[in-house]
C-alpha cells in the first residue's frame, strides 16, 4: 500500500505531462473536469482580485482622479460578475464534480458528456463577458444591472449585450451541472449508501442542484428579455412605453437570492466534512444539518424582494418579505450550533483546513447578523446600497463561502494531486488573509453607517472617510499578497509537497479509501458501505477515530 501511495503522485504528474491539449479539451473524466473547473475558477479569481485591487487603489484617497468614472463602473460590474458567476459557482461545482462520484462510490458522473459540456459552457460564458472589452467596453451597470439603466437609451455600449450573452451561456452550463448532480446522486450511489448515510457534502450539492435548476431560468429569461429590448427595440423594462423597471428587479432577485444560497450550501457541506474529521468526532446533528439545508432551499425562494424594500412596493409586501427573511436565519443559525457542537468534546487538529473552518464560524456569524439587520425594513432603508451592504456580503461570500472553499482546498488538495498542500505556507496564508479580510471589510460597516453609498468611483473628504478608506485599501493589499502566496504555495506543493498517501487526515468518507490521486476508475476494490462513516465505523477498514491514525 505504501509503495503505491508513494508512486501515485509521480505517475499522476507524468501522465498529466504526456496528455495533449486535445485530450484536455475532449476529456470526459470527472476528475480532470473537476480540476479544470477549479483552474478556470483560479484564473478568474486572479482577474477579479486584480480588479478589486485597482478599485481599492482608486478609493485610497478622497477625490482621487486615477481612474475615469466609467472605467471604475466597468471594474465593479466585472468584479461582481466574475466572482459570482466565474469563480465561486465554478469552484463549488468543480469540487462537486470531482468529489461527489468519489464520495458515493461511483466511477463517474451520470452524464459524462453533459459534464464536459457544462464546464466548457461556463468557461465560454466567462470569455464572452471579458471579450466585451475588445468590442468597446466591459459591462458597466453593476452585476445586478438594474433597468432602465441597462437599456440602450442609457447605456448604449456593447458591454451589456456581452454580459447578457455571456451569462446566458454560463447559465446553460450551470443548469446542466445541476441536472447532472441530481441524477448522479439519485442513480449512482453504491450499494448500501442510503440517503440517510450520504456524506453531508453530497447532501448539500444534492439540495443545491434543486436550487440551481429552478432559480437560473428566471435569470436566463430576464437576460433574454433584456437582449430583445436592446437589440430589437422591445420595451419590457422601460416605463415610458408601458414596460416596468421593477419587473427586471423581481426576475433578477427571484434568481439572485437563491443564487446566494447556491453559493453557500456546498460550502456548508464542506464544513460538515472538515469539522468532524479534525475533531475526531461524528457531526453533531446530522439530521438537523440535512433538514436545515432543505429548509434554506425552500425559504430562499420566498425572500427575493428583501432586495427591494426601498423600491416602494408598499408596507404589506415589505412585511411578507421581512418575515420570510427573518425566518431563514433560524436554519442558517442552527448550522453554526451544529459545527460548534461537533468541536465540543472532540480532539481538535488545527490544520490550515480546520483553521479556515473555525474562522468561518466567526466571520459568517458577523455576516449573518448584519444580514438579519437588513430584514428589519427600517434599518434596510438606511443601510441598503451602502458600504454596510458591501461589508455584509463580503462577510458572507468571503468570510463565508471563500473560507469554506479554502477549508476544502487544503482538505482535498492531497487527494487531487497526491501531495500535501504545504502547511507552513498555509498558516501564513491564513494569518495574512484573515487579517487583511477583516481590516478591509469590518471598517466598511462604519463607512456605510456614515453615509457612503456603494458603487461610487470617488467620495468627498467628509470626516472619517479618508482614514477608513485608506485602511480598507491596506487590508485589500494584504489579501492580495496572501492570494499570491497561495498560488505560489500550490505550485511549490505540486512539485515538492509531502507525499499524501490515501488518507492523510484520517477521513471517514469513501474518497479516502482509494489512492491519492485516485485511479481512472476511482476504486481498485469496490468499497462496502454499512454505516454513515464507513472508514471509521466498519471494522474491516479499522480506521476508527480512536486509533488516531494520523498521530
Amino acid at each position, binding site marked *: 500500500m505504501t509503495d503505491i501511495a508513494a508512486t501515485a503522485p509521480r505517475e499522476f504528474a507524468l501522465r498529466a505531462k504526456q496528455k495533449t491539449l486535445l485530450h484536455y479539451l475532449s476529456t470526459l473524466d470527472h476528475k480532470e473536469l473537476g480540476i479544470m473547473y477549479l483552474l478556470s475558477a483560479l484564473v478568474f479569481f486572479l482577474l477579479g482580485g486584480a480588479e478589486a485591487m485597482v478599485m481599492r487603489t482608486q478609493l485610497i484617497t478622497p477625490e482621487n482622479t486615477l481612474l475615469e468614472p*466609467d472605467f471604475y463602473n466597468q471594474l465593479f460590474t466585472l468584479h461582481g460578475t466574475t466572482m459570482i458567476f466565474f469563480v465561486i459557482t465554478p469552484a463549488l461545482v468543480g469540487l462537486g464534480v470531482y468529489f461527489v462520484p468519489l464520495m458515493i462510490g461511483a466511477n463517474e458522473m451520470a452524464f459524462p458528456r453533459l459534464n464536459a459540456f457544462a464546464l466548457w459552457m461556463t468557461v465560454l460564458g466567462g470569455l464572452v463577458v471579458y471579450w466585451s472589452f475588445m468590442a468597446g467596453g466591459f459591462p458597466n*451597470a453593476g452585476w445586478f444591472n*438594474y433597468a*432602465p*439603466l441597462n437599456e440602450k437609451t*442609457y447605456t448604449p455600449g456593447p458591454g451589456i449585450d456581452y454580459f447578457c450573452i455571456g451569462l446566458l451561456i454560463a447559465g446553460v452550463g450551470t443548469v446542466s451541472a445541476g441536472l447532472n448532480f441530481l441524477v448522479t446522486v439519485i442513480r449512482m450511489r453504491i450499494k448500501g449508501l442510503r440517503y440517510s448515510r450520504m456524506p453531508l457534502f453530497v447532501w448539500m450539492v444534492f439540495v443545491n442542484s434543486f436550487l440551481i435548476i429552478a432559480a437560473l431560468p428566471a435569470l436566463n429569461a430576464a437576460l433574454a428579455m433584456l437582449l430583445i429590448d436592446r437589440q430589437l427595440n422591445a420595451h419590457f423594462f*422601460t*416605463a*415610458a412605453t408601458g414596460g416596468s*423597471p*421593477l419587473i427586471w428587479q423581481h426576475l433578477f432577485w427571484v434568481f439572485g437570492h437563491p443564487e446566494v444560497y447556491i453559493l453557500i450550501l456546498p460550502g456548508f457541506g464542506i464544513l460538515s466534512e472538515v469539522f468532524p474529521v479534525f475533531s475526531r468526532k461524528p457531526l*453533531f*446533528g*446530522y*439530521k*438537523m444539518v440535512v433538514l436545515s439545508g432543505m429548509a434554506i432551499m425552500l425559504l430562499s425562494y420566498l425572500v427575493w424582494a428583501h432586495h427591494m424594500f*426601498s*423600491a*416602494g412596493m*408598499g*408596507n404589506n409586501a*415589505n*412585511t411578507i418579505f*421581512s418575515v420570510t427573511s*427573518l425566518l431563514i*436565519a*433560524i436554519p442558517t*443559525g*442552527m448550522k453554526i*450550533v451544529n459545527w460548534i457542537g461537533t468541536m465540543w*468534546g*472532540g*480532539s*481538535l487538529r488545527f490544520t490550515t483546513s480546520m483553521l479556515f473552518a473555525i474562522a468561518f*464560524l466567526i466571520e459568517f*456569524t458577523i455576516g449573518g*447578523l448584519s444580514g*438579519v*439587520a437588513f430584514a*428589519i*425594513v*427600517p*434599518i434596510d*432603508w*438606511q443601510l*441598503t*446600497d451602502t458600504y454596510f451592504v458591501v461589508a455584509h456580503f463580503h462577510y458572507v461570500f468571503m468570510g463565508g463561502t471563500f473560507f469554506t472553499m479554502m477549508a476544502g482546498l487544503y482538505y482535498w488538495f492531497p487527494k487531487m494531486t497526491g501531495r500535501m498542500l504545504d502547511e507552513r505556507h498555509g498558516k501564513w496564508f491564513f494569518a495574512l488573509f484573515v487579517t487583511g479580510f477583516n481590516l478591509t471589510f469590518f471598517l466598511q460597516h462604519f463607512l456605510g*453607517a*456614515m*453615509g457612503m*453609498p456603494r*458603487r*461610487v468611483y470617488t467620495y*468627498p473628504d*467628509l*470626516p472619517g472617510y479618508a482614514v477608513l478608506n485608506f485602511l480598507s485599501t491596506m487590508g485589500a493589499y494584504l489579501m492580495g499578497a496572501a492570494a499570491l502566496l497561495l498560488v505560489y504555495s500550490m505550485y511549490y506543493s505540486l512539485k515538492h509537497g509531502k507525499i499524501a498517501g490515501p488518507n492523510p487526515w484520517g477521513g471517514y468518507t469513501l474518497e479516502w479509501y482509494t489512492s491519492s490521486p485516485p485511479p481512472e476508475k476511482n476504486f481498485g476494490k469496490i468499497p462496502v458501505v454499512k454505516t454513515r462513516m464507513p472508514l471509521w465505523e466498519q471494522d474491516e477498514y479499522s480506521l476508527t*477515530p*480512536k486509533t*488516531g491514525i494520523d*498521530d
Partner: protein
Amino acid sequence: MISFLDRATEGNEELYHLFIHYSIAAGAVFFLVVAATVYSIIKFRSSRRNNPAQFRDNKKVEIIAVSIAASLIIFFGYRTVVLMNRINPPVNGATPDIVVTGHQWWWEVEYPGTGVTTANEFHIPVGRKTLVELRSADVIHSFWVPNLAGKQDMVPGYGSHLWLNVKRPGTYVGVCGEFCGQQHAWMRLKVVAHPQEEYDQWLAANAGDASIPDDPTALSGAAVFKSMSCQSCHAIRGYNPGSHTGPDLTHLASREYLAGGVVKNTPENIHRWLTDPQKVKPGAHMPNMHLTNQQKEDLTAFLKQLK
C-alpha cells in the same frame, strides 16, 4: 457628521432605539458564538484530549437554540412591522409639500403651489410633518439623507414618497442611494431645516424672480445666456422661462455647490464649468458650448449675482 443614528427626525429617533436593541441582541449572539468557539479551541485541542466521546447530537441543545432564534425573530419581526408603518404610512391622497425628481446626476426640487423650483439644495421646516414626493426623470435614483430618513427609490413610472418630521434645525447632506450611471458618485444633495418663520422667509425669497443685473458685464452675460441657447435646458424665472431639462438657475448664487456637489459654487468654478463641463464632471449631460473667454466671463458675472 453624517450618521443614520442621528436622531434629527422622529422616524430616525425610533429607528435609533430599534437599532440599538437589535445591536444588543446581535452582540449577545455573537458573544455566545465566539465564546463557545474559543472555549472549544482551548479546551478540546488534541494535545489535551484523545479518544473523544462519539456522541452525535443533543436534542436539548438543539431545541434551546431553535427556541432562542425563534423568539428573537418574533420580537424583531413585530418591531419591524410596527416601525415600518409608523415611519412610512400611506399617503391617502395628501398633497406633497415638496416634489423631488432625480435626474442623471442632479436633483430637481419643486414646491407645488409656490412656484419655487430649485436644485440639489433645498429647505424644509422644523417641527412639522412634511410630505416629500419622489419621482425620476430617467433611471432609478434613491433619495437618501441619512440623518433624516432611510432611502426611498425613485423608479420611473412609479411614485414613491417620504414623510419627514425634523426636530432640530441644521444642515443635512445626502447622496443618491442607487447606482444610476457614470456620475452616481456626484449626485449629492443638501437639506437645510429651519424653524417655520425662517422657512417661510426662504420660501418667499425663492418664489421671487431672478434679480435683473445693473452692471454691464453681467448684462452682456444675460445676453450670452439667450444667444448661446442655454435656455434650451435651463430656466431663470422672470428672465427666461427656458426649460427644465437641466437645473433651474433662478437663485443659483444662493447654493453652496455646483453640479451635484462636485465643486464649490465660486466664480472660478463657474468659469471652469463653462469652459468644459466634461473636465469637471465627466459624463455630465451639459455639453461644452465652446464659449469665448469674454462670453465666459460675462456669463460668470451674470450667474454669480443670481442670489
